């Protein structure tokens, strides 16, 4: 019984990341960050008011949730960045080096190469998001006794954002050189984040044109929309209620979300993944090797 080619290629992609010690590097860095942040979170519980009394639990929770959003933003950034940088050269570098020549002369479809590489890297992104997210939440819980309201959704949204960048990088990699594809994916991710902020400002100022910038960018590259989902999963109910009383002004903040991502948006994300994968396959199929 032999594996179908796309699974062979997925396995090879994971094997490469492991043999090149990418997984080890990420593991060590993650443990260091989690360790330091646990120490920092623990300090919140020792804070006192001016009269010397410790902070009440709801204030500890509020502070912890805000700090957690910043730390998770870093994690999701590292994940998105790594996904873009690793996916950018995934196909192009192997075309340029000639590595794919002997493999594609086997009975292997181009689509199987694309899907295999996507699957392999997607598994890595999901495993990393799951591992780093769980480690961070366990550390915060240990340090402060606080757990965000929706920990599983949080990890899923962070992983999905990584998958978005991975898919974009892979699509670009079917045609552009590795560096170019990685850089474009990275810039697109930052632009989508900024466009999301512009959209927030539009909401705050009730300016339709600016608001549309946010909406369109969320459709073109859903990374920021997914990040908003991650934020929402981290906010205590009290904070969401407080922001809602502020009306539209409460929404103009890239580190806050008053509503969960709409179901239509989540469905669109699935469609987006399908479109990008189909485009990647079509693009690679006509690529001259």
């Amino acid at each position, binding site marked *: 019984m*032999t594996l179908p080619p796309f699974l062979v290629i997925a396995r090879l992609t994971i094997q490469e990341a492991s043999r090149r010690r990418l997984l080890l590097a990420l593991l060590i860095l993650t443990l260091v960050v989690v360790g330091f942040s646990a120490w920092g979170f623990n300090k919140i519980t020792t804070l006192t008011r001016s009269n010397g009394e410790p902070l009440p639990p709801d204030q500890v929770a509020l502070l912890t949730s805000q700090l957690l959003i910043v730390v998770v933003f870093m994690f999701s950034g590292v994940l998105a960045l790594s996904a873009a940088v690793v996916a950018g050269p995934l196909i192009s570098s192997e075309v340029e080096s000639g590595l794919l020549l002997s493999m594609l002369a086997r009975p292997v479809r181009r689509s199987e190469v694309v899907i295999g590489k996507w699957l392999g890297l997607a598994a890595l992104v999901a495993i990393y998001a799951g591992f780093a997210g769980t480690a961070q939440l366990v550390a915060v819980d240990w340090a402060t006794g606080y757990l965000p309201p929706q920990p599983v959704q949080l990890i899923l949204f962070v992983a999905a954002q990584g998958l978005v960048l991975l898919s974009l990088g892979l699509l670009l990699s079917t045609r552009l050189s590795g560096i170019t594809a990685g850089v474009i994916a990275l810039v697109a991710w930052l632009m989508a984040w900024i466009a999301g902020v512009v959209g927030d400002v539009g909401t705050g100022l009730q300016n339709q044109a600016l608001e549309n910038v946010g909406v369109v960018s969320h459709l073109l590259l859903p990374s920021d929309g997914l990040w908003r989902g991650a934020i929402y999963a981290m906010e205590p109910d009290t904070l969401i209620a407080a922001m809602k009383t502020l009306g539209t002004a409460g929404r103009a903040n890239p580190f806050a979300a008053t509503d969960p991502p709409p179901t239509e948006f989540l469905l669109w994300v699935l469609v987006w993944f399908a479109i990008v994968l189909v485009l990647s396959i079509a693009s690679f199929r006509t690529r001259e090797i």
Partner: protein
Amino acid sequence: MAQVAEEETAAVSSEAAAGSPAVKTVDLHKRFGGTVALAGLTMTVPRGEVFGFLGPNGAGKTTAVKLLLGLLTPTSGEGWLLGRRIGDLGARRRIGYLPELFRYQSWLSAAEVLALHCELAPLPRASWKDEIRNVLETVGLTERAGDKVGTFSKGMQQRLGLGAALLGEPELVFLDEPTSALDPVGRHDVREIIRGLAARGTAVFLNSHLLSEVEQVCDRVAVVDHGRVIAEGSMDELLGGTAVRVRATGLAQADKNKLLSFGRIDDEGDQLTFASLDPERVPDLVAQIVAMGGRVYEVAPRHQTLEDRFLQLLEDEEK
């Protein structure tokens, strides 16, 4: 079930295709933007033959192989491998390929690279161990089987690539400049491997610009230039003529021009080499040189080499 049905169909059409040539192309064209790489390549390589595909750099040799393997799409024209249209996945089950630009996963060991190719070929898992051991033995890498490819010299990587191309006893093997990174011992080994393939009935498509290599192992040769086959035939057909070297003094340029009626001349002053001359005409040639006042010191017929013929073909092509 679907897969079984597919394999049965493959088996049936494979039988049907058994009488078909190993490679056949009809008027194959390939353009890259404004550059014409292949301008109507038409050729047939019978099964079990060692076929030399010769040409100067940039003649279109690698492009032709990549088109046949479906790595490039032809601009126009048709081609078949083992009776199946180019691009058909089924034909690629029975083919081995050593690319000119050979590169293998540096983070895998030699044996793991071969196992990967066994898996993609795909060969039955039970046969992998023997297949891998045999090809490692054939290409002389048994001792390095467990070492990472990243630690290999270029020559060893080319040997590994050759090994990968030999897995599973393919019916057709494409070797694109297979000795480019090899030392004389390695070149000798490759010639032996090619002879071994021929003895087993495997067709070999050898891309090369190393004429001595081709001359030693090929049954038939096609010479390609500017993307077209300019000559094709068995080694004997191609090298039919005899070259004659004449050392003579006292000939003016005008006299030498008159001698062109005896065919192409390689003029090196007193040394004149007639690239292809019927031995029966040698006395006439000497008589004419003497009649023009020339003094003949030496007349040496020699068997034409592939190099003579190759240069002559390219020169004729220029005219």
